[in-house]
């Protein structure tokens, strides 16, 4: 998979996320007579979901294309703490 | 009367060694350190044989050889080319220009002495 395919994949994933978030039946969960600080939950939900979608869209377009380099994933995993020092010693 | 040999090389040590070698072989020896000097020596006194280095300042060995061969008066002079160039094309060029033999440095002193004696034992046929 090259960088641009990954970017394309991001959009496909986001599109499905958008469909799920913004159409029923997921929407049914928030379609109720309830308020948070006086504001109907449906309103809050729709605008928050929309904002999140736009933010993710911005990230998907603005984040640099992933470069596939050997060992890079491992380095990232280590930085995130997924590979502990002990595991490293063991391997 | 012993035969005379002209040694031409710009390397002083090589000249020194050849001088000793030829003298010990019983030849008369003349020395020259570059091509022009060599031609001057030949004009002054025609040697029987010239041991001629190729890479020299002013005139190189090929040019000296050519000039000697161009002069019919010097037709009897045998020429052994002595050079650090060992490429076949160089060797062929030397022989084409009229050298009688061609040896690559470093050479065997005995071999050289033998070749000198062999060349001097027969008259050179001018062709």
């Amino acid at each position, binding site marked *: 998979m090259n960088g641009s395919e990954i970017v394309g994949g991001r959009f496909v994933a986001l599109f499905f996320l958008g469909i799920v978030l913004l159409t*029923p039946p997921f929407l049914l969960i928030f379609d109720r007579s309830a308020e948070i600080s006086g504001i109907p939950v449906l309103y809050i939900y729709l605008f928050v979901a929309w904002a999140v979608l736009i933010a993710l869209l911005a990230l998907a377009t603005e984040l640099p294309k992933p470069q596939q380099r050997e060992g890079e994933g491992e380095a990232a995993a280590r930085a995130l703490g997924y590979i502990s020092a002990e595991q490293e010693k063991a391997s | 009367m012993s035969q005379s040999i002209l040694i031409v090389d710009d390397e002083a040590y090589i000249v020194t060694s050849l001088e000793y070698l030829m003298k010990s072989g019983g030849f008369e020896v003349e020395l020259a350190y570059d091509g022009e000097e060599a031609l001057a020596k030949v004009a002054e006194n025609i040697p029987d044989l010239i041991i001629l280095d190729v890479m020299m300042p002013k005139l190189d060995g090929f040019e000296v050889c050519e000039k000697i061969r161009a002069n019919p008066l010097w037709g009897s002079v045998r020429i052994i080319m002595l050079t650090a160039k060992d490429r076949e094309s160089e060797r062929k060029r030397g022989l084409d220009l009229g050298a009688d033999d061609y040896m690559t440095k470093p050479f065997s*002193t005995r071999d050289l002495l033998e070749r000198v004696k062999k060349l001097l034992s027969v008259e050179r046929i001018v062709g």
Partner: protein
Amino acid sequence: MLQGWFIIAAAFAYLCVLFAIAYWGDKRAAEKRSIISNPYVYTLSIAVYCTSWTFYGSVGRAASSGVGFLPIYLGPTLTFILAWFVLRKIIRISKVNRITSIADFIASRYGKSSYLGGLVTIIAVIGIVPYISLQLSAVSDSFTVLTQYPVVAMAEKVSSVPIFADTAFYVSLFLGAFAILFGARHLDASEHHEGMVAAIAFESVVKLLAFLAIGLFVTYGVYDGFGDIFSRAQTTEGLAKLFTMEGAGGYGSWVSLTLLSMAAIIFLPRQFQMTVVECTNERHLKKAVWLFPLYLFLINIFVLPIAFGGLLHFPQGGVNADMFVLTLPMAEHQEMLALFAFIGGLSAATAMIIVATVSLSTMVSNDLVMPVLLRFAWLHLSRRADLTGLILTIRRTTIAVVLLMGYLYVRLIGDSYALVSIGLVSFIAAAQFAPAIIGGIFWKGASRAGAIAGLGGGFVLWAYTLLVPSFARSGRLPESFLLDGPLGIGMLKPQALFWLEGLDPTSHALFWTMVINIGLFLAFSLCSSQSVVERSQAVQFVDVFKRTATGRHTWQGRATVGEIKQLLARFIGRVRMENTFSELEKSLVQVLPDEGVASVEVVAFAERQLAGTIGAASARIMLASVVREEMHDMDEMLEILDEASQVIEYSRRLEEKSHQLQSVSDDLKAANFQLKELDKLKDEFISTVSHELRTPLTSIRSFSEILHDNPDMSEEKQNEFVGIIVKESERLTRLLDNILDISKMEAGKLEWQLKVLDPKEVIEDALAATAGLFQQGDNIRLHTDLPDNLPAVHVDSDRLTQVLVNLISNAVKFCDMDDGTVWITAKAKDGALCVSVRDNGIGISPGDHEKVFKRFQQAGTLETQKPRGTGLGLPISVEIIVQFGGEIWVDSEIGAGATFEFCIPVASDDGDGLPFIKEGSTG
């Protein structure tokens, strides 16, 4: 204060600003300094999507259906997520094929079909009329409402006032004139309107700011924030139902509106115009992908608060919710804010009208009227020198007619629908283009027959399910038509077709039009065969990202050279024609007899010549006219000419490619030459090295053999010869060291131990190493001038010593044999340390100065008994000094001695990080 004249003056001033921006944009475009070529202006221009429908209508819809207005903006967000796949491809195709409108796009995809272009144009015009009428009525309503300030009262029913007392009529006239001035002032061959785009972007800023201002005022000025408004609504009877989906019209409507707006954002003619045709750079899309949804988000944040604010403020009704944006500030006596709201609504409406009419007029003139006119031979259109006047007239007329139709629609229908419903009618019309376009760019099998059938069927159903009911509901058709179906046939009820009931009219129409459209499109595509042109266009469109020049059949020349010449002579004069043709013959290296068939080159040449005189579009038509007599079918002619221009395009690319190849091959040649040179140098180097090694070896071998064969040699001679062997062995060793050094340096493999050093110590080391040279013969004197405070340098101590030893031993070697003197001087100069070594020897002629630094090159002859150089000392010194970031040179004349001098940069304070140091460690 807010009298009619003042509002008109304010609106007029605003429109003048727009003109100024457009003028500026056009001017900058002419200067090739585009102001619109950036993703932000691009995004704002796409925001032409938000019309007065958004500005006024969203609030109106929210007031009756809660979040029901939102799918119109969520849909585009979803579409833009997929922009990378869909929009990018449409834009690329349009750029490659120089597409000027959505009709052009569809016609071009399906074999350049003029029927299809015409059909699309008709659908677009009829479909967009309701949308335009919506803008007209919004502007006239808002104007009427505002003039009554401070009284909040609604405009009278349009249909009840005579035309000449009708504000909407004057608004139509005014906006029509404005749109003509804006979009059809002059003809731009490229169909780009940079000034218009700049103005539209500006309008997008204005309407957003205006709406946010009203929103903030209502939410925080009139009420106490979002929570306050909604809490109050909660307690008001009848409003709480708007808080859920039920009030929004249910899920069916939600999903169909989402789908509809997903299509509309691409296929509305004005969106296609802005997003695709006016796109200056495909890369701008990347930012617009999230900036445009963000714009939609921002302009929608305050829709609900304003809607509920309005509902709470005017509980007794009587105030059209579509006008809340205007009436709320009016009721609060904020006249300037109300005026700002009016200007915001005006900007939203004008933007839509300008772009829509410009794109429609382009379509009408290029895809509908011109092809029809060109069919009528008796018009002799093709013989007219300049068609721009005609085209402009067509466009201006189109704009006027479209606006007039919009006005009529307002008068006939306007009051019976809310703004949003009218807009949706147009949305569904635009959605009819979706199958033909989406199918066309992803499916090569999509055919012209399929597109015509799908579009035609969809359009007919659109008219039947949406347009006809709108006339019926306004009383222009009998009501029974709707309720019982035409002639009482229940199956054919326009809003319950085939007994499909229970859907809202929009979903109902969307369902039936799409079922028919897609169904016919697929069925006809699968059952019909494509023509050659169609097939090649299909491949070109679908494979736009992997396009090659293959698969195109070449243009078959059918006009004679003589005809082409005659045509050219008509426009550029006989003399000039003869001149240009003789040049052409020269460049083609062939004679072109008049009766010969004109080749592709000749036609292309003629087209270029004509285009230079009468413009590209007219040139093509003119050229077509010459060959038409040979043609049975006009379409075929146009197709062929189109392909001729494609061939030109390909040949231009081929030419570019061949230029590239030429330059690559030139580069290769140069590289090959360099390699050969390097190879030759390497060969020479090896041969020289071999020679240089053989020389001392020869002496060593000779003397060894002599010593071996002459045991009775005098001891004196023996010592002399052994001494020579020793010296020559040393020379051999030195030579080998030097050769190794230089080849390592060249390969960059030499390790440099760089340290910050006091140069004086290094010089003294070198002097100690060469002290022997000065003691040998008492006839060489050494003078040194080494100050104590020399600047530190960042160097490798051993290597610098090596340079100094080289220079000193050279100086000793070449100095005057009887009375030699060597001077060594060190000093700081211009941030560098300079060391010179001078001798009083024979000197070097200036012609040899460069030579001495080359390998195995020594100036002059050497007939001394001193140790000979290796011929590598100076080249190595050069390499070392260069490595230190310095330089070395010689200054000398024959008989005047020689001075070798080098300078190296002084070390910086921290001692490392010097730019000229490539490697090495300081530790």
